[in-house]
């Protein structure tokens, strides 16, 4: 039973990392204004959103399973306050930090209609911090960090996000060069 919980915790963590990678890449792609064959611009947004929410669900299972696992020796406070745990406090603390960031981004995104686009967008920038923190946590804390398959997943995910971010910084990023506005105000 404990073995199963441990496997569930690890498994959901790794899969969450993969769907978050997908979500962040699609988010960047969508921001460019380009349609993707078959999906369209609105479809891209929906897949971005679905991937992110799937990741949130996986993380809930990931955290929950580790609480139930006696070997992990987690206390409730470790889910919220980072760097307190007895086992690899730094790496596990990064995981807690990622959960905190994820909670903020998720809640604000779900309340987008009420908080308005300015706060939504400002908070959404946190995902650029969230993703690397989560990746470091996976590599540092994870039992599988030095296995070939985990390394392959990590390299592929990092490559995908790095490529998307680099592309975003290129002048050719936006579909229509003139359409993006350096605004006086964004409300």
């Amino acid at each position, binding site marked *: 039973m404990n073995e199963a919980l441990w496997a569930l915790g690890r498994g959901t963590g790794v899969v969450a990392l993969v769907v978050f990678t997908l979500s962040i890449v699609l988010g960047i792609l969508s921001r460019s204004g380009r349609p993707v064959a078959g999906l369209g611009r609105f479809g891209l947004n929906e897949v971005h959103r679905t991937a992110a929410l799937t990741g949130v669900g996986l993380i809930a299972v990931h955290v929950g399973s580790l609480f139930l696992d006696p070997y992990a020796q987690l206390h409730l406070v470790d889910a919220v306050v980072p760097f307190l745990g007895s086992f690899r406090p730094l790496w596990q603390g990064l995981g807690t930090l990622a959960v905190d960031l994820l909670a903020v981004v998720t809640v604000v995104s779900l309340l987008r209609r009420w908080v*308005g686009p300015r706060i939504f967008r400002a908070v959404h920038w946190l995902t650029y911090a969230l993703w690397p923190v989560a990746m470091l946590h996976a590599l540092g804390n994870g039992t599988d960090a030095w296995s070939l398959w985990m390394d392959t997943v990590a390299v592929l995910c990092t490559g995908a996000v790095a490529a998307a971010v680099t592309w975003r910084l290129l002048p050719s990023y936006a*579909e229509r060069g003139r*359409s*993006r506005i350096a605004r006086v105000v964004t409300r």
Partner: protein
Amino acid sequence: MRIHVDWTRCDGHGACAELLPELLTTDDWGFPLVTGDERDPQVTVSLAGHARRAVKACPLQALRLVD
């Protein structure tokens, strides 16, 4: 019911024109362009569902149903 674009928010993502082609297309720069003559086009009952979906899909919340 009419559809209204808040131009101070719109950044030309183009999702609305894909979801509501009966009323909106895009201009040279990707911003929504009303296909008819009205500034805020009337949304017929049969299009109301599509219009609501377009409003929800706007990443910048620049689209609104008014009246």
